[in-house]
């Protein structure tokens, strides 16, 4: 039987970064991890076998890991069809030429996301966004900016970004994890939003590999705070055979809530976030055990 394909593989290639943002999902314990040789070999094998259409690299700062990124993507069986993307802090884009030089260093690069918000602006000037956008335009790369927010009021920065150009902007509430949790800068929901109960895991059509953790459908709370053997595995095959993966692929959060015998009335405003609700269901309501038999 041919190996099951999945279109996108997200890789946290390492957690080192040249910034130390207050909202970072990595804390001091997890901030200096790099992929080990055996992890790189495992990723190479997976890419060779499954030929994902897209590889997306995040960190840490992925441009601190250019050689590793190219080594991983080099095993793709159809490199002409491969699309590589990165999410970067753009700290290197001090000039247009500096931006171009760095972007050129990653093989098969098609998509660039730059994180820029009130947290990143403590380390990098907005002119770097302008340089990065111009470099991507010149190199025909897609470009978006991710704006992490503690509150909707933080979106005021978007008007400044709009002056630079008409690129895509994605707004991302700050997760209550890592340094964000420690610094109390995570996004606050004013009330519980029931829409979350109709949603599925936003990552269910993807697979992630996080250095030091393993393969997982999760790239959020459970992966960073949970037990390895339940939420992450050494191989993608092992993970795809797990009850956790099966539940996340198929069940809505409303269904997961029913499995643990809770009602929406018991949920708090912070459970409006898919990832926070998922963390609550698995770690506080015992879904990790219940899911195996009741799903």
């Amino acid at each position, binding site marked *: 039987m041919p190996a099951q394909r999945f279109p996108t593989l997200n890789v946290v290639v390492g957690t080192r970064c040249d910034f130390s943002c207050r909202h970072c999902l990595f804390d001091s314990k997890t901030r200096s991890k790099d992929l080990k040789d055996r992890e790189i070999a495992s990723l190479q094998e997976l890419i060779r076998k499954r030929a994902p259409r897209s590889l997306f690299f995040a960190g840490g700062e992925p441009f601190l890991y250019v050689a590793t990124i190219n080594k991983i993507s080099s095993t793709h069986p159809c490199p002409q069809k491969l699309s590589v993307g990165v*999410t970067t802090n753009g700290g290197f884009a001090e000039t247009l030429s500096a931006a171009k030089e760095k972007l050129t260093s990653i093989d098969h690069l098609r998509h660039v996301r730059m994180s820029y918000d009130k947290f990143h602006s403590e380390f990098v000037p907005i002119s770097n966004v302008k340089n990065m956008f111009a470099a991507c335009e010149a190199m025909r790369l897609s470009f978006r900016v991710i704006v992490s927010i503690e509150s909707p009021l933080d979106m005021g920065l978007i008007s400044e970004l709009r002056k630079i150009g008409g690129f895509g902007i994605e707004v991302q509430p700050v997760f209550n994890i890592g340094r964000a949790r420690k610094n109390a800068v995570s996004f606050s929901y*004013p009330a519980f939003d029931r829409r979350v109960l109709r949603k599925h895991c936003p990552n269910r059509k993807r697979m992630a590999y996080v250095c030091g953790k393993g393969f997982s459908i999760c790239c959020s709370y459970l992966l960073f705070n949970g037990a390895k053997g339940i939420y992450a595995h050494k191989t993608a095959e092992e993970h795809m055979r797990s009850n956790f993966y099966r539940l996340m692929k198929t069940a809505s959060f409303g269904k997961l809530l029913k499995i643990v015998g809770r009602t929406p009335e018991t949920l708090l405003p912070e459970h409006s976030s898919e990832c926070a609700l998922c963390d609550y269901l698995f770690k506080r309501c015992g879904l990790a055990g219940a899911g195996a038999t009741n799903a």
Partner: protein
Amino acid sequence: MTKKDKIIAAFLVSIGMFSATVAVKYVSALSDNQKNGLMSSVKSTDGIILIADTVIDDDNKKNIG
């Protein structure tokens, strides 16, 4: 609700941040200064904001650029 309140609430709903009920609750708790700040965001976004729903992003989302 004032017209400004409705515009801000509609904006927050349109980008997927809050449901209508939650957006109305949120806007009602804002000061005038905060509402004015958010209005500047409304004017500059041209409806192209999406909520990124994962820690790690990929290229699977709709074209918004």
